[in-house]
């Protein structure tokens, strides 16, 4: 069976405010008004997020990380969603939401611990409202729904955003999360980055209909947005979060985008997709269209773009230095935090390992 080339849909159902050529267009249901500083800020975010990703990929290639899950091509989807979130909102990511983490104020260095193998999530989710990465596909959508039900019970003025991908849309947990959030009208936004590929499986293997249309069957609205258009993603995400906060229940956002890199650094996409497809999507690059827009309108000049590149270099240096400073944990820490209240069994095993390790002291 031939692998089909997935053509981006740009029909009327796709919300777009900035064309791939960098032209501002209007949409009847979604609009956005930003200051020049905010437009420039979004561009800066996109560039810095891509730089986080390329630096981490380089660190993996140099043996400093065991693995990296690249977000290349999905910067606009993540920055648009991430910048729509406010401090009191809580995000439940997959393992690829480095851009959302950045927008939530999580230091990119702390994202690396998991991939370097020195911890399983180096940040406190409560600090920035950003849960640990979730690797089992789709599990976090139920966590997000539960958190949103907690907000309801607290009478809190916040919302939750659950991130997942096109592959996860087939998982039972995601469908259960749709049911639960719908019947309880929980303040959660389901943000699906449809990057066209679940490792080697194309979207056609997950769904016979556009993913956003699934929402209708669960009783809440679904919308497809150009995931490479940061302005449209920001507008659609803000509207969905506002809808959630005002008690109108969940929304499914399908951010139509493309995974320009491999699934992870262990993957080889040449085995399952054509190079021409990537070339097609490069023409829709999320950063290039924003740069064209800023240039065309005179909102930014060379000095600005150079300054952003310099900031990206500084961020990369910070990530590199921070990564190299992430030391291996001590062996006995493997018993730490299995339980909040401790365990007599683990106390015994810790003593055994300590005694065993201690038996080598002084030996050669």
């Amino acid at each position, binding site marked *: 069976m031939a692998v089909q080339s997935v053509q981006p849909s740009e029909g009327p159902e796709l919300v777009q405010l900035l064309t791939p050529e960098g032209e501002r267009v209007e949409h009847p249901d979604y609009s956005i008004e930003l200051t020049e500083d905010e437009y420039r800020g979004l561009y800066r975010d996109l560039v810095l997020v891509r730089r986080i990703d390329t630096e981490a990929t380089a660190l993996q290639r140099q043996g400093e990380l065991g693995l990296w899950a690249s977000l290349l091509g999905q910067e606009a989807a993540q920055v648009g969603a991430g910048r729509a979130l406010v401090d009191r909102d809580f995000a*439940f990511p997959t393992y690829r939401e480095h851009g959302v983490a950045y927008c939530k104020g999580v230091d990119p260095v702390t994202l690396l611990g998991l991939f370097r193998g020195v911890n*399983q999530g180096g940040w406190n*989710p409560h600090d920035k409202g950003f849960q*640990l990465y979730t690797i089992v596909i789709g599990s976090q959508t139920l966590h997000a729904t*539960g958190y949103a*039900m*907690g907000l309801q019970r607290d009478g809190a003025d916040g919302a939750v955003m659950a991130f997942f991908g096109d592959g996860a849309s087939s998982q039972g947990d995601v469908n259960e999360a749709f049911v639960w959030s719908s019947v309880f009208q929980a303040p959660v936004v389901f943000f699906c980055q449809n990057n066209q590929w679940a490792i080697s499986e194309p979207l056609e293997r997950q769904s016979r209909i556009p993913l956003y249309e699934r929402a209708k069957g669960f009783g809440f609205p679904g919308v497809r947005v150009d995931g490479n258009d940061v302005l449209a993603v920001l507008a659609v995400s803000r509207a969905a979060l506002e809808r959630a906060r005002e008690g109108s229940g969940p929304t499914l956002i399908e951010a139509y985008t493309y995974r320009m890199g491999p699934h992870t650094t262990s993957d080889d996409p040449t085995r399952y997709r054509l190079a021409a497809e990537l070339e097609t999507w490069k023409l829709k690059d999320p950063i290039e269209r924003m740069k064209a827009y800023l240039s065309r309108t005179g909102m930014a000049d060379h000095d600005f773009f150079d300054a952003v590149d310099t900031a990206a270099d500084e961020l990369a240096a910070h990530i590199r230095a921070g990564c190299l400073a992430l030391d291996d944990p001590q062996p006995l820490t493997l018993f730490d935090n*299995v339980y*909040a209240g401790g365990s*007599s069994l683990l106390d015994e095993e810790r003593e055994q390992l300590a005694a065993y390790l201690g038996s080598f002291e002084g030996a050669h």
Partner: protein
Amino acid sequence: MSGTTLTLGKALNEGLRKALENDPKVLIMGEDVGRLGGVFRVTDGLQKDFGEDRVIDTPLAESGIVGTAVGLSIRGFRPVCEIQFDGFVFPAFDQIVSQVAKMHYRSAGNVKMPITIRIPFGGGIGAVEHHSESPESYFCHTPGLKVVACSNPVDAYWMIQQAIESDDPIVFFEPKRRYWDKAEVDPSAGAPRSLWNAEVVRPGSEVTLLTYGPSVKTCLEAAAAAETEGRDIEVVDLRSLSPIDWETVIASVRKTQHAIVVSEAPVYASLAAEVAARVSEKCFYELESPVLRVCGFSTPYPTSRIEEDYLPDLDRILDAVDRSLAF
């Protein structure tokens, strides 16, 4: 203040009521737990008194029950999830072992999972398939979970409250065929012991029966029957299945020098196997015979008309006692 005679099911109900009264963050969630009061009526009347936001009738989706409990815990709640029957826990298995059990560990202690997962377990009620299973070994095998089983109304009343107060996730097994057993429960007396302690429920000198949940009563009946033949059997109710109170277990076996583990769960690679291995290791010099196991057979739970042949009963237990002492 004197006690009240309660069934095990009602004792759980009263314990849950106390937990809801004592901590506004405690929630009860599950299928039919609200309006109906649970298929075993363990949550009877609680939704009426505490409201639909705290006693939640959920969609029929076990992974959803546990998965949303994870999110509620992150938000600071203390969910008590009811899985309607033992055989229905497996749709939630992934959320329990991959998410609930590991969250505190992988978050370096930043995220607590004070979730209690109640599961009616075990057979002997003449039920159709998937309603009589003993899946505790799966959960005991999973680091990050604590697992307990109550065997009588007094423990049911106190243990459910202690489990809910715990900051660790606890799988709480309830012996469904003992729901209607009665005993006097005195709420003013205070919890008689820690949730993690085993209890010598019948002292004896010749052989130790190590057991839990519904089999505790079976073992006590076996010990009473054996007494008429001059046998002096000690029965230890493990109560906490993970971790196990080895101090109490080992002290008993060192005294009697004979040990038999009794459980309804399939014997192969079971919690009973862990108990037997551990006792053999720790009591090697004191044991006068190999540790025996009287458990369910390594088959799927059978049809109800032959479940009595599958379940450990007085005769199989006493046969093992004879073999142990004759070794």
